[in-house]
């Protein structure tokens, strides 16, 4: 503080007024530089504090908008019906309603069943995807067998074809064999993940050939090499893909909406839609409780394994 108050007296104008810089003057100007610098440092610090304040202000305002639906969902799920009906604007319930809406939601629709369906379908899809994609990507990355070029180009082309394109013929086919309204129908189109093949091929490419050659000389079969040497080395790519696949299919609505009409088989998004469009769809307390339950698993996984989760979704 002392230094800062002293600074204005030593204005730069003083120095330029002195035409001849004496040894003494030189010495004083040296002594004054730190105080002038301190003054500037103070200003800079003030400016920085203002920028910091503005940045946090903008970020917090945005964060509030991002969080608003989540907060309102949670608050409404524990708010008594009369407060909901009144359209209370308080961000907390005046009277805590407890688990009431959750019990209602469970009575209206089989929420737990939806989640189990989701778990079953997602894990089934992931298991087959990995079983198909790992050997194929290994062969594409490390073996020459004649048809690798054409297969790789087809994989690249298929990357650009979303489920909405193949949905119609696949639906007709499933209807033909009476396969609609089954878990199998929900999983079938996703058994082949061309994305997994592409991703794992890129990651296996970097695996050193010498090690593979050495393993072959030791008499290991290609099958053993694949599962005991190559797969463990690609663990992190596989984990990232697993996150991607689980999230994608847990949240998918389009395909289940086409092949599933039986409430008992619905995965979470379709179940939520049945719930929202049913007669009970105006009971917002229960609806918000249902939304909370169905959103919770992925959000919890995200909060627990943030890095892995983000890595999986943005590979």
């Amino acid at each position: 503080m002392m230094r800062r108050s002293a600074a204005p007296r030593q204005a730069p104008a003083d120095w330029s007024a002195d035409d001849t810089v004496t040894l003494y003057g030189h010495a004083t100007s040296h002594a004054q530089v730190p105080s002038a610098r301190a003054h500037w440092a103070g200003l800079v610090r003030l400016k920085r504090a203002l920028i910091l304040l503005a940045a946090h202000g903008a970020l917090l305002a945005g964060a509030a908008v991002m969080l608003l639906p989540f907060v309102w969902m949670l608050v409404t799920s524990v708010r008594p019906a009369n407060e909901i009906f009144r359209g209370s604007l308080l961000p907390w319930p005046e009277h805590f309603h407890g688990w009431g809406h959750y019990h209602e939601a469970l009575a209206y629709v089989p929420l737990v069943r939806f989640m189990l369906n989701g778990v079953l379908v997602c894990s089934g899809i992931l298991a087959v995807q990995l079983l198909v994609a790992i050997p194929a990507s290994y062969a594409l990355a490390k073996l020459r067998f004649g048809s690798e070029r054409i297969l790789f180009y087809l994989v690249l082309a298929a990357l650009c074809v979303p489920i909405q394109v193949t949905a119609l013929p696949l639906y007709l086919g499933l209807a033909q064999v009476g396969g609609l309204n089954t878990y199998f129908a929900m999983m079938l189109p996703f058994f082949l993940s061309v994305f997994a093949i592409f991703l794992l091929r890129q990651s296996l490419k970097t695996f050193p050939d010498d090690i593979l050659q050495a393993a072959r000389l030791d008499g290991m079969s290609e099958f053993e090499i694949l599962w005991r040497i190559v797969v463990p080395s690609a663990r992190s790519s596989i984990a990232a893909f697993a996150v991607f696949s689980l999230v994608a299919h847990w949240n998918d609505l389009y395909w289940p909406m086409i092949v599933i009409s039986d409430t008992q088989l619905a995965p979470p998004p379709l179940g939520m839609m049945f719930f929202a469009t049913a007669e009970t769809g105006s009971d917002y307390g229960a609806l918000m409780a249902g939304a909370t339950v169905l959103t919770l698993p992925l959000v919890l996984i995200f909060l627990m394994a943030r890095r892995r989760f983000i890595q999986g979704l943005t590979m």
Partner: protein
Amino acid sequence: MNATQNDAHCRQGAPSVATAAKRAGTRDAKRTPGTRGGLRRREHWTGFSLCLPAWVLLCALYLAPIIVLALLSVTDYEMGAVRWKVVGLDNYRRAFSDPVFRRSLANTLLYMVLVVPLSVAGGLFIALLVHARGVSRAFYEVIYFLPVTATLVAMATVWQFLLHPTLGPFNHLLDLAGLGRHNFLNQPGLMLPTLAAIGIWQLLGFNMILFLSRLSQIPQSLYDAAAIDGASHAIDRFLCVTVPLLGPTLLFVIVTSSITAFKIFDTVAVLTQGRHGSEVLLYDIYLEGFTYSRTGYAAALTVIFLALILLLSVWQTRQLDKKVHYA
């Protein structure tokens, strides 16, 4: 999220398409055919059998359906019909004179025009602010990414409640402010902007993360070098270091956001059921193909959808090739 995820298929797909293909070519040249015939035959057989399941599924889930789709699109087949005939390109002609399809195409484009610039610019802005934070960075990252992780269908019902004409807090606030209540999900002119706002809310965090990961790859030494070269102000350093290095990522994010926006479906299905003023491409295809069972016509619409998606993907791949140059 699911829209975002599905496109991630397409989006992520391409990272080094060109380079990967190139590499595949050079490997072939390295091996001289004919040497160690036995080993080669074994490799042939192993490679083929390892890829067999993938081949079978590729044919059953991609090749055959696309061929069937193309064939269906030139017929007047209706689900369950006994008789059908080839109608040539009639379905395509009909599509472009069908007011519902034209509206859904226009609405989808309008939705893209609203969502893409705002979610990309917003994502970049937030990423720049978050990147400069120290301890609080993780906190903001979590909050902004949260909508990406939440099941979109569930969050859409929450938005439905927030925007409810009588019970929703938004209308309550508007009423208090004397602006009157609005039925955001029923008034033709309001539906699309409302859907776009929800789309932006969901996409913002995803774009932010893509920008953030690029920002943290820019080495501090470049900024130091720029400072020594005379870029004394932070804004100068931003313009001469950050912007050029972020350019390719920016294009990438624009393309992926376009694909995500193009495939809007979930929010329409839950919130407006494609009511007049909110018709979009995928929902129209869904209605024609699976609700009205006009299979042949829906197939033609799907082929148009595929053509547009491929256009976006080709654009994406070209951008990615440029990205590789910079990186």
